[in-house]
Each structure stands twice: as C-alpha cells, then as structure tokens.
C-alpha cells in the first residue's frame, strides 16, 4: 500500500480530521470476503496500490451524456472538486477542505467502522454542501455531474433542504476506467421538505464503485431516492435513511443491470426512529452472463416508533443460467405496533409475454430487449432522457453480448 499511502499523505496535508480518519482506516483495514457484508466482493483482485494516481491521468474525460446534463442547472465535479456550477435562485453551494457530516456525531466517529467511508473522509479534496433555502420550490432538477480524470475519485456531497422546500437532483457518474470511485453522500431534509435524488452510475466496467448515502429526515419530510447501477466491475451501493421525525417518508428504488463478471452489491438500512414513518423500498435488477447481484436490506424500528409502515420489494431477472441473484431481507423491530412487509421474486423473462410479442412478429431478440427495458421502466420514472437512453443502450449491449435464454 506504499504508493497509495504516499499519495494519501500528500492529499491529507496534515489536516487533523483527515489524519484521524486515516488512522481509523489503518486500524479497521481493508475488508475481506470473510466479512459477511463483503462476501460477494471480488476482493482477491483488489489492492489500493492499483489506484495510487491521485493526479489527473487525463484532461478531458467528459462524455456527451455528461455534457448534456451540464447544459442545464448543474454542478460539475471533477475528481471530487467543484469545477463549475450553474444554480437557480435559492440554492447555495459551499465547499470546505475540512471534512464534515450532517450527522450529530463527529464525522470520523459517525463512519468509524466503514473502511471506504473513512477513506473518503480522509481523501476527498473537499466537502461540497448544497443548501436549498427554506420555502423554496425548485422547478428544475439540478444535475451533479461527476467526472473522474485521476485513478481515484473520493467525493463528499451534502444536500440540505430547508423547511417546506422541494428540490430534485440527478447525480451522474461515468467513465473512470480502472479507477476507484468512492462517493459519500448525506441528505438532510427539514420539516415538511421534500427531496428527490436520482443517482445513475455508468462507470467503465474496469472501475470500482463503492458508494454510501444517508438521508436524515425530519418531521413530515420526504426523501425519494432512485439508484441506477449500470457500470463498474464491483458496484457497491449502500443507502440508508434515518426517519427522525414523525410522518417522514422514504421511498428508495434501486435498480441495476449486470453483465460479464460484474457484481452489484446493494445494501440498505431504513432506520425508523420516530412514529408514523413510512419506508418503501423497491429493488429491481437484471443479471446476465456470469454477473451477480446481492440485495441486503435492513429495516430497523426503534422502540416507540409506533405505526411505522415499512415495506421492501425485490424482483430480480436472471438473463443467463450462470448469473446469480441473492436477496437477504432483515428486520430488527423493537416496537409492536408496526407494519412490515417483504416480497421477493427471482426468475427468467416471462415466457408467455415473450411469446405474445413474438406472435405479433417481434423478432426474439427484440422481444427480449422490449421486455428487459419494460422491466426497468417503472424504475426510471422521472429520470432525464440522457439517463433513460443510457439504460437502453446498456440493455441493447448486454443482449448483443449474451445469448439470452
């Protein structure tokens, strides 16, 4: 890890919080597949020294899709640093070189057990904070476009939505061949406020993507989050919501498409602290080739969080006989007066639906494409055209690579 450590030392530049995070990271160490929560990760071919280049390797990594997203209200973030922003009234952007958290506890303590979060705290160039003023209703979505030009991209992003406000964001990651991309995000949604975030990860298949987000929801706040995972060799996405105020609602949709030897590893934690809080989780993905997906969802309900309503649904589509899908729902309930439900399905494309389309003259491969795209449709509601077309392109590519069925 010498090369990586050397680059890290330069990046931390003696900042005490960063050094503290690094010390914790050294103590915790890299995970191994013996850890239950990492058992599906291809860690045997992972070494931090692969990613020791903290300086740009290329000057221009921006894709046409990213450029299109940047043409409207947006923030362009390169290797974790804000390069430019175009924001509507009511939205402010600040960046701090000292890492911070929206949680009540200090940042290192908050993520003390999480190796990659600690690395992000130690090594993200800055903490980017977007604030939406109270009683502001944004009519247009803001794009957060992440570009990776170096061998690593650690980023810390915070979105703070003021009381009674509404905002929506589209986060987009692509490119980053051979890079390690570790975004750590936090969303704070104040009373009666509403936030929608669509995160689309379409990195190169040689990249590693290890993301984590946490939503903090106050009274009657709403967080609607949609995670679309298409790229990366290993795609890990942990998405938590802390429902802190009564009447808070969290809707989380996670979706993915796997091919080759990709691993999509989704982790969720819906933490119900206050009563009358709702969480709705829908995970839907398709795996082809030798790819694998894992969905591990935890619903945690604190004592006193009466009349909580928490639901998880997970549907996986197997597009080859060598693809794998695992679904692991978990419940940790310390209150009796609650409603929890879980539903899960896994299987190939529906034979009758496929036949019906073919019986109209739709060629078999085209029928598969329509059905797979159809499977993703409900997951892409509200997504901009650039993202929908990216999913469609990937479905077509996967079908051309794989002999489905």
């Amino acid at each position, binding site marked *: 890890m010498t090369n990586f450590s050397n680059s890290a030392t330069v990046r931390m530049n003696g900042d005490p919080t960063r050094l503290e995070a690094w010390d914790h990271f050294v103590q915790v160490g890299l995970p191994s597949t013996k850890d239950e929560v990492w058992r599906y990760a291809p860690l045997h071919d992972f070494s931090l020294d692969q990613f020791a280049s903290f300086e740009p390797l290329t000057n221009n990594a921006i894709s046409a899709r990213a450029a299109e997203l940047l043409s409207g209200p947006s923030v362009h973030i390169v290797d974790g640093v804000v390069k430019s922003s175009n924001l509507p009234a009511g939205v402010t952007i600040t960046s701090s070189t000292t890492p911070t958290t929206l949680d009540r506890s200090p940042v290192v303590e908050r993520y003390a057990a999480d190796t990659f979060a600690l690395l992000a705290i130690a090594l993200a160039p800055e903490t980017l904070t977007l604030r939406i003023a109270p009683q502001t209703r944004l009519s247009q979505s803001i794009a957060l476009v992440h570009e990776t030009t170096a061998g690593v991209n650690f980023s810390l992003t915070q979105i703070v939505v003021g009381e009674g406000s509404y905002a929506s964001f589209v986060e987009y990651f692509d490119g980053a061949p051979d890079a390690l991309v570790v975004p750590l995000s936090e969303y704070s949604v104040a009373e009666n406020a509403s936030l929608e975030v669509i995160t689309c990860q379409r990195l190169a298949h040689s990249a590693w993507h290890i993301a984590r987000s946490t939503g903090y929801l106050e009274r009657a706040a709403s967080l609607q989050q949609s995670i679309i995972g298409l790229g990366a060799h290993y795609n890990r996405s942990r998405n938590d919501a802390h429902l802190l105020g009564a009447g808070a609602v969290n809707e989380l949709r996670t979706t993915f498409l796997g091919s080759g030897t990709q691993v999509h590893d989704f982790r969720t934690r819906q933490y119900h602290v206050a009563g009358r809080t709702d969480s709705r989780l829908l995970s839907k993905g398709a795996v082809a080739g030798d790819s694998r997906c894992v969905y591990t969802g935890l619903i945690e309900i604190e004592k006193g969080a009466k009349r909580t309503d928490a639901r998880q649904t997970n549907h996986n589509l197997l597009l080859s006989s060598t693809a794998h899908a695992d679904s692991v729902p978990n419940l940790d309930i310390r209150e009796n007066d609650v409603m929890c439900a879980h539903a899960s399905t896994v299987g190939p494309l529906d034979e009758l639906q496929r036949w019906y389309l073919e019986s109209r*003259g739709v060629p078999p491969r085209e029928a598969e494409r*329509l059905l797979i795209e159809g499977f993703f449709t409900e997951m892409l509601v509200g997504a901009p055209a650039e993202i929908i077309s990216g999913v469609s392109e990937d479905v077509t590519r996967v079908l051309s690579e794989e002999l489905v069925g």
Partner: protein
Amino acid sequence: MSELVITDLRAEVAGKEVLKGISLTMKSGEVHAIMGPNGSGKSTLAHVLSAHPGYKVLGGTVTLDGVNLLELGASERARAGLMLAMQQPVEVPGVRPIDLLVAAGASGDAVENMRHEAERVGLRGDLLERFVNVDLSGGEKKRAEMVQLAVLKPKFAILDEIDSGLDVDALHAVGERLSAATREWNCGLLAITHFRRLLDVLAPDVIHVMSAGKIVASGGPELAEILERDGYEPFKV
C-alpha cells in the same frame, strides 16, 4: 391470392394428444369459423398455429403460400402473415403498444395508423399510452387486439374466441373491423367461437365443427343454424 393449408395436424399438450389430424384449406379473403364443444381442441389449434409454448406438434404440416410454418418460430410465422387475436391477450408491463408495433415491423406511420385504427374500433386514445393490455377491461383488450391486427395487416388472422366476454357494442365494433379487413387487404379469417352472434357479423363462407381433436363436419352457414337447433351432440365422435 394467398393460401393457408393445414394437413393432418396432430399435437399434444402435457403428454395428451389433443389435435388428432386436422386438415383445412383457406384462401385470402375467406372467412372460416370453427365451432365445437369445450375441450374439442379449438383453442389448441389456435395456439399450435401460433407456436405457443407448451404444445408439441406430433405430425402434419401447416403451409402459408407453400412455406411450412411449423419449421418457423412464432415471430417468423407472424412475419410470414399469420397472426393470432386472443381470447385473453397477455399483459406486458413496461412495453407500450407503439413500441410493440414498431418492433413487429409495422410499416408506414405506425403512430398515425395506430391512432386511426383505435378510433375505428372505439378504443380511447389515452389507452394507447398504457402498457400492452395492462389495466384494460376485457372489451378494451379485444379492441386493442384489433388495433394491432389492423396496423400489422396479416394475410390470415386466427381469432381465438375473440367474442367471449364482449358486450353488444364491443362485439359489433370488433366484428365490423374484421369484416372490413377481409375487404381492405383480403385478410383471411379463421374464427374460433362458441357463439353465433359473431358469425352474424362475419358471415363465414365455411363452418367447421370440431369434436375430440378432429373436424367432424364442414359446411356453409346453414351448419350454424343446425348447431343452434341441435347442439353438438349429433356431431360428437
């Protein structure tokens, strides 16, 4: 002029022989009806002709203008000119009618043709925005099948109890559209039905009676009257 020729077609489902040698020839623009008691193999015939999964052909041939359809997959059969309109059209969540039609090879302005045909059969325009057959009533589904048929214009259409569960207005709309198809592009119709009321609209040239997997009688429209009067009992084998 096209010709659909079924010769000694035998097929099984779940290991049981259900079609025991069906032979039938029809030409463009002709309307043939197949009637018969429950379990006589009518719907099996429709499904076997359209390569429905779960059916196994044991013998015989089906040719459309000399091409053996039984050697083709469902999609190729449709492209060769044979289309099935179903009693219970399959719901396909996530797929829009226009995408189905374009992928099925609809020629010309598919959007305009689809809208025009929807109007002709009284299918509300906004229903075309729903996914294929999802959240449609039984009558709307049958009308939607007619829209597909009219946009794709097959040489021969097999109608599998398309009249079941239709109210008078829907039956009229569906029947009129099918009759017009025989004139507009000389579409041949093979209508499987239990009911005379569809035949009153379609005016078939030939009526076949099926029983126990075979065609046991064929004749003109008078056969429908005999069936109406005497039932299937005299035809049972």
